[in-house]
């Protein structure tokens, strides 16, 4: 029974990722990405990692893709089409490199990497284990990531603050 669900969700994830790259419309791409994220979240649930699944939906579906769509809505579709059309040769080279890298990764994972469920299966993906790992083994990357995010946030605030403050009631 489990493999049936796995096959289903994996297929959906694949269709989703194919849709991301194949659709010409940026919002459609983002929607396919959403589909992909949801499918992957479901795969996490199959693995018993409910917390990861929820985090996946909350962070990626609830925030990241929303922001993608928000940006696309703000700048409009046309600009993206122009961008693609104009810079196609460069993009092809970059895309080629990326495809090569990912293909190599895929081949490595499929044939040489350790397979199956990670060890410590019962607590895998539970809140406690994730929290513990984050604050012990992966403390440095965790802190680095937060510093980078903080820097990005400050940068965004500075960029945004350049525009006029909203009129209406003067600031208290």
């Amino acid at each position, binding site marked *: 029974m489990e493999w049936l669900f796995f096959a289903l969700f994996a297929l959906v994830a694949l269709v989703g990722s194919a849709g991301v790259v194949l659709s010409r*419309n940026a*919002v*459609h791409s983002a*929607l396919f990405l*959403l589909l992909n994220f949801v499918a992957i979240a479901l795969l996490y649930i199959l693995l018993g990692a*409910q*917390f990861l699944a*929820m*985090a996946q*939906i*909350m962070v990626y*579906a*609830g*925030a990241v893709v*929303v*922001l993608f*769509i*928000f940006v696309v*809505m*703000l700048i409009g579709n046309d600009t993206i089409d122009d961008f693609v059309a104009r810079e196609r040769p460069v993009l092809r080279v970059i895309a080629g490199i990326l495809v090569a890298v990912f293909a190599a990764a895929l081949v490595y994972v499929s044939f040489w990497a350790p397979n199956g469920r990670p060890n410590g299966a019962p607590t895998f993906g539970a*809140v406690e284990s994730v929290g513990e790992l984050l604050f012990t083994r992966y403390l440095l990357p965790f802190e680095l990531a937060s510093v980078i995010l903080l820097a990005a946030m400050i940068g965004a605030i500075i960029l945004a603050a350049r525009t006029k403050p*909203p009129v*209406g*009631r003067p600031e208290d």
Partner: protein
Amino acid sequence: MDWMGLLVIPVVKGAIILLLLLTATAYLTLFERKLLGRFQVRLGPNRAGPYGLLQPLADAVKLFFKEEVVPHHVDKPVYLLAPLLTLVPALALFAVVPLGPSVHLFGREIPLSMGDVNVAVLYILAIGSVGTYGVMLAGWASNNNYSLLGAMRTSAQMISYELPMGLFVVSLILLSGTMSVTQIVEQGRPWWAWLWLWLGFPFFFITVLAETNRSPFDFPETENELIAGYQIEYGGFKFAIFYVSEYLHMITTGGVVATLFFGGWKGPFVDRFPLLGVVYLALKILAILFLFIWVRASVPRVRYDQLMRFGWKVLLPLSLLYLGITALLVVFLL
């Protein structure tokens, strides 16, 4: 395989809950119109059936038999997908709300909730955050300046208010020590914990109003500015889905609030008559819905930029402060 436990019971339970939920939604529209009418010293709908009880049916029939129009300038797949994307999260949210304690039926113990996930609180937040899509995509796919403005407002609003809401919920998790909604309801709390919880309730309620797009934060629609915002190009059945989702969202959020802050199904004599729990929960939800409508009758709408400023400059610091104090309380008192 335990077909009974795995398939039949959840399906039957789901069907019953769905039916109840949809009926409740239909009557919530009547409840709101009646109540709003009384707040405005008028009667509200009273022509369809006794006391207007058939009004939801009349509305439904009207909306079902309307011509289905798809304007030629819309992005058709997304345009059609958007109403569903609002409906599904609103429905899914209710799955983790425990309706009452377990009942014994046909020699089985049946918990009165769809699923008892141990990360239910996170589930609520996650599903709530997905609810943005319907509105946002509806606004974008309609290809209309007004709906686009509505969609942009909504997405910004929902993202902003999810943060303080999430932080309040985190405080709650700290206080309860669990992420399972069933356990949050069932475990006892010391009196100071209740008091502290209720102190934070008004602010949490504000974030809930913003998340459900209720007045005074009803920006996506803002009939006075953006006419109907994201719904402007929708009519008939598709509009009905938006309409139902909105009210469904109110009920499910009411259920979540009642569960998290007011002890869910708990009340006197529940241990002897488990089904009484459902009644208590319904009453608590009703009280919260009353509050929703009361606020709507009483205050003007906040302006969009002020809403954002309030969210980021007042609610977010407040929720952080609340979280900090909760942590201290938990460490020293629990």
